[in-house]
């Protein structure tokens, strides 16, 4: 590895860390700017009880000190403090419970998008302007434009309430099929279109013509020459795709009632469970930042034409 590569990687990691820090800082100060502080007085609490509560959560200290402790706890112990609305539960514990479900759903969705989208895009590119290509393009255009909340609700209605094929919530494994499809459809369509256009781009390159002129077989041209280079744009989509899946999971988990981190985030906002909002935002943001980092680095490693600067 050259020093230039190393410098790039370090710079990129530095930016990722900076981003996480900015997210933590924004989240913390934005949350503390809410009037009345985290403890909205829904029930009238006596002043001594209020003071005791504030002392317990460290809210009596100056804001900057609270920020310091919050940051220190995250860095050293990955501790986001206790939940305000759920007595006796820590935010870290709740996030850990939710994350397991969400990550498995998200990963399955991401991999199916990748492993179905790329071949589909290749098929479309090879059969350019034929009926197969047209059908694929119509459907992918449709799925790219449909918001995930609409797709999810339509699936819910169609497959669980009308046809009764699949359960409406995720208690059994069959309940995870619809959420996964809902989450995967957008990135799948996007990857299909991306693969198609980049493959068509590659087909126009000189080295493909050379290969054809030398009598290389069609299969060899597609898999040996065109495929590898046309996958580079797909790799750049890695980070955005996972970011989409993370945010898409908020809606999908809400619709299908899946106890993942996304539905926790949504309910924490409606519940005004401030520590949980902060915790979930920061963890989800970390996930996205890490995914973007990996996607970026992968991209530079795969394509030697990209310069490191």
């Amino acid at each position: 590895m050259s020093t230039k590569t190393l410098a790039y990687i370090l710079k990129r990691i530095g930016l990722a860390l900076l981003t996480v820090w900015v997210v933590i800082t924004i989240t913390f100060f934005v949350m503390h700017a809410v009037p009345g502080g985290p403890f909205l007085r829904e029930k009238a609490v006596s002043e001594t009880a209020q003071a005791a509560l504030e002392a317990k959560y460290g809210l009596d200290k100056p804001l900057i000190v609270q920020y310091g402790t919050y940051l220190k706890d995250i860095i050293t112990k990955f501790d986001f403090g206790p939940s305000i609305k759920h007595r006796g539960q820590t935010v870290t514990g709740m996030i850990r419970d939710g994350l397991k479900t969400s990550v498995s759903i998200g990963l399955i969705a991401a991999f199916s998008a990748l492993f179905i989208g790329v071949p589909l895009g290749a098929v479309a590119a090879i059969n350019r302007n034929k009926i197969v290509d047209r059908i694929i393009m119509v459907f992918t255009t449709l799925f790219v434009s449909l918001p995930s909340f609409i797709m999810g609700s339509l699936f819910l209605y169609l497959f669980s309430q009308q046809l009764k094929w699949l359960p409406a919530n995720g208690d059994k494994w069959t309940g995870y099929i619809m959420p996964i499809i809902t989450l995967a459809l957008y990135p799948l369509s996007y990857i299909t279109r991306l693969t198609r256009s980049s493959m068509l781009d590659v087909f126009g390159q000189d080295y493909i013509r050379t290969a054809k002129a030398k009598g290389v077989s069609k299969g060899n041209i597609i898999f040996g020459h065109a495929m590898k280079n046309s996958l580079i744009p797909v790799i750049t989509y890695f980070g955005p795709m996972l970011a989409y899946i993370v945010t898409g999971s908020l809606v999908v988990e809400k619709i299908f009632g899946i106890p993942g981190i996304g539905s926790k985030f949504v309910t924490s906002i409606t519940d005004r469970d401030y520590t949980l909002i902060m915790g979930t935002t920061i963890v989800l943001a970390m996930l996205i930042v890490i995914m973007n980092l990996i996607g970026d680095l992968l991209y530079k490693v795969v394509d030697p034409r990209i310069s490191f600067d």
Partner: protein
Amino acid sequence: MDIKKNPLSMHINVDSFLPASDEDKAYMVKMRPSSTFFKDGVKRLLKNKVAVVSFFIIVIITLSSIILPFFWPYGYEQQLGNKFPYPVDNSYSNLKPFEYGETEKARMEAGEKVFPHIFGTDAQGRDYFIRVVYGTRISLAVGFFASIIVLIIGMLIGSISGYFGGVIDLVLMRIVDVIYSLPDMLMVILLAAVLNVTLGDAIDKSFLKGIGGNIISLFIVFALLYWVSMARLVRGQILSLREQEYVLASKAAGAKGGWIIRKHLIPNCVSVIFISTALQIPSAIFTESYLSFLGLGVNAPMPSLGSLANDALNGIQSYFYRLLIPAVVVSLIVLSLNLFGDGLRDAFDPKLND
């Protein structure tokens, strides 16, 4: 001219070198009016059937969302079964399409004409059609104004950064880098949730009351987060444009920075900026409906397409059409705006036409 020429002379024929008459000139000129970049673009755009159809869909939806409320007999927050002097009439809640409430039936029997509830009514007895129309209006307005805000901020910062370069550029671009790498949707949700609580009261007291706290916070969120890609785009354009000779010539003639930005740089990158603004609108509508679906969008009695879909989710079994209608409208808007934006890009981006 009457110069006599010896038929055997090797001299050239002078007659062939007479100045051309106007007739000759007219014959040589190709009769084609000169075309501008804009005219060419429109011509190309009109050839693109998909883009034209999308454009008409957008125009129809926009116009009807503006005009229809003026002569529709029902208001979007008017609970039809709840007219002040009379007791609450529950027969108006959850009407199916083209059904009528009890008093309306009585009025019809008396020979009066009653305007139908085309999409029925919702659980609170509000005419659903007009709610969808208002929801469309709000979603479109949010998309449009959010894009304008993004355009103004992005263009300002992008052109300053690109033109002046140096330390200003470095600082601005580092800020852009950080904001760009922030997970946008999460920040949008967080800010929308908090801003509404924080600013809600202040807005309700100010002149902005009619718009509603949530929409204002949506605009602020867009203004804070989404200008970065526009700023990057403008900066990139300006960096390549400012090396052009005509800018140098303008500088040599004593032009100042602001003048060069306004007269040379912006007009030359305007088509790229315009296209990316057009494509920003559907994504803003998308974001707004997403937030409204999560319950973070517009304030309660006011509908948006996302919040209508969210409300419909509870009664999905019996009143599926209530989910389907806003879903179809929002998909139609987003799809046709995207297709039209693509058409614009194909027609007006000169770099694609080689």
